[in-house]
């Protein structure tokens, strides 16, 4: 798997280099002073600036990444070509450990039918005295005690909208003290001083994804402010200590011209791909100060989101999540899986884009935030794979009637009306095993 990651990184570097040479734009340069002043003035409304982005294309899209996993094969693995009951019907052919439903019931007891949940028991027809008011009361206590571990345990049953911002920053241990604000201002200064090619990729990504989304287009300016600063934050490099990926490097002549030094490009080592800005967009609903928004996003990235776009065997890594999704589907919905396979619509090809973005941009925002509450509460992305399987279970009847990949995608195109918590609860606790 390490080889696959290294090859994948080489492909990305080649793509970026060729874009750079084709367009004749340097990967990084210092901004001339008039341009710096202009950017400082326009900092809060960068969305109005429309640079010519037509020649830029995203470095890669999630479906390119999926092809890397599909090709992952262990030479020591016995894989016959026949489709038997024992073989794995899905695309991922790596034998990683995964949990089945009985084990997940033990892992996620707070999602059970006997526990109150925000997302189910706060519905208008349920009297608030049953669960909601007590839960909010406990939440207020947790926030006033500033107890991070309690906040994590609490968010397993959902965070009330009014307390979510504080609870998440408690769990992620981000503060808005002067040090954090100064750090953000420093990053902003670096954005103004240096211009990176990666900035154009970010512009393009925001314009293509968040700006076209009904829920997130209002936050366009915030997204630029966060993502441009994120690219220049060298503190992010520390996460490569536990990430199997490595940051891209380049050789540079020092100013004296005497020696070559290796620098990391971009400074944070992360090359954004198509859809990257969707990791930030939902957070804009919670935080309106750019420095706070930035700290929370950075912490979420270095804890969770980086696993969604690097090849590793970690249980929360994207390969394990995809395998988990396929296994759950094959075990509990075998007829559906077989039918979809036969019509050439491998389920992972449809679900991959949901998993890689942790459902951002596919669910409605309040439902997405309830899902991300549980990601933080259980400190794992496994719940994303479970939800993907639960969505297929929910639409199983319609899917059994389709006859092509395109119609299968049409059935699953619109998830904005789905309620996340009932789906998860039914799939985990009401499926017969």
């Amino acid at each position: 798997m390490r080889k696959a990651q290294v090859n994948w990184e080489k492909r990305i570097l080649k793509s970026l280099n060729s874009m750079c040479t084709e367009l004749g734009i340097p990967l990084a340069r210092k901004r001339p002073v008039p341009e710096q002043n202009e950017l400082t003035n326009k900092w809060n409304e960068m969305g109005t600036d429309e640079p010519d982005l037509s020649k830029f294309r995203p470095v890669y899209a999630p479906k390119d990444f999926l092809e890397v996993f599909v090709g992952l094969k262990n030479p020591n693995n016995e894989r016959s070509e026949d489709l038997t009951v024992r073989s794995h019907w899905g695309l991922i052919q790596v034998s990683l450990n995964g949990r089945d439903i009985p084990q997940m019931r033990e892992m996620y007891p707070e999602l059970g039918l006997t526990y109150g949940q925000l997302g189910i028991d706060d519905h208008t027809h349920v009297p608030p005295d049953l669960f909601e008011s007590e839960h909010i009361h406990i939440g207020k206590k947790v926030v006033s005690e500033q107890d991070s571990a309690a906040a994590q345990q609490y968010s397993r049953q959902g965070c009330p909208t009014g307390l979510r911002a504080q609870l998440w920053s408690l769990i992620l241990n981000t503060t808005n003290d002067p040090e954090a604000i100064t750090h953000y201002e420093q990053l902003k200064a670096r954005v103004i001083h240096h211009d990176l090619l990666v900035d154009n990729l970010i512009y393009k990504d925001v314009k293509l994804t968040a700006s076209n989304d009904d829920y997130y287009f209002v936050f366009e300016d915030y997204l630029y402010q966060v993502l441009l600063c994120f690219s220049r934050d060298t503190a992010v490099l520390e996460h490569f200590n536990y990430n199997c990926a490595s940051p891209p490097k380049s050789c540079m002549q020092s100013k004296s011209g005497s020696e070559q030094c290796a620098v990391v490009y971009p400074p944070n080592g992360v090359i954004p791909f198509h859809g990257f800005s969707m990791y930030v967009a939902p957070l804009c609903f919670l935080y309106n100060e750019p420095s706070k928004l930035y700290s929370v996003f950075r912490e979420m990235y270095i804890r969770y989101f980086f696993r969604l776009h690097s090849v590793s065997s970690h249980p929360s890594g994207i390969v394990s999540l995809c395998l988990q999704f396929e296994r759950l589907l094959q075990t509990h919905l075998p007829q559906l899986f077989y039918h979809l396979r036969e019509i050439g619509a491998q389920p992972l090809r449809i679900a991959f884009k949901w998993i890689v973005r942790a459902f951002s941009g596919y669910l409605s925002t309040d439902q997405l935030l309830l899902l991300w509450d549980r990601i933080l509460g259980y400190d794992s992305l496994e719940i994303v794979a479970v939800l993907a399987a639960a969505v297929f279970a929910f639409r199983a009847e319609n899917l059994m009637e389709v006859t092509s990949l395109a119609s299968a995608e049409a059935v699953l195109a619109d998830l904005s009306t789905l309620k996340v918590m009932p789906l998860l609860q039914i799939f985990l606790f009401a499926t017969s095993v």
Partner: protein
Amino acid sequence: MSAKAVSCTIKSPVALQIGDAVSDSSRPGVYITDITLAEPVNIQEISFKNYYTAYVTVRLQRRQGGSAKWVTCLRNYCLMSNPHAEAGSHDYFSIYRHQMLTEPDSVTTVRLILRQPSSEWLNFSIEEINIYPCAKEDSERDVPAWISTLTPVEEPLDLNGLPDPETVSSSIQQMWALTEIMQASQTAASIGRFDVDGSYDVKLLSYT
């Protein structure tokens, strides 16, 4: 802690299976590897790298008096918690003396019985086997020559106009105390500069 590994000959693994090894199409689930030691050793540690072996049993042949006896010192030690999954398949393991059922003293041969019940894998084995003997209490290592030539008695130093060592060392100690205070009061935040001397003109990325 561990001295150099003892030299040993590792024989090629022998498969145990029912039927003819050549014509039978099913793969073996048990391999046996013998390791012969040049002379009887008290084993401290056996270390190896796994390659898809699920369980290992270790048997020792000990030479006691004139006779050689086989004992089992580790039975079905689990290397892969789920034989069908990748976890533990490439890990490094060490088996220590205190984990063994019997004392691994005067060992002449070590027999490793490898089992992999899962049909997922085409091959399995263990690699890079090293056996470490117990460190001897009465070490016969030579005392390095410079230890024996240390001056046993402090002779009065000939200063030749240099300042008194006692005063110099006390002032150095004060300076050291100051630097410790400075280090302790530094913030944990890094400066995080990514440019080199103010310039960050990157032309192309390098593939290494």
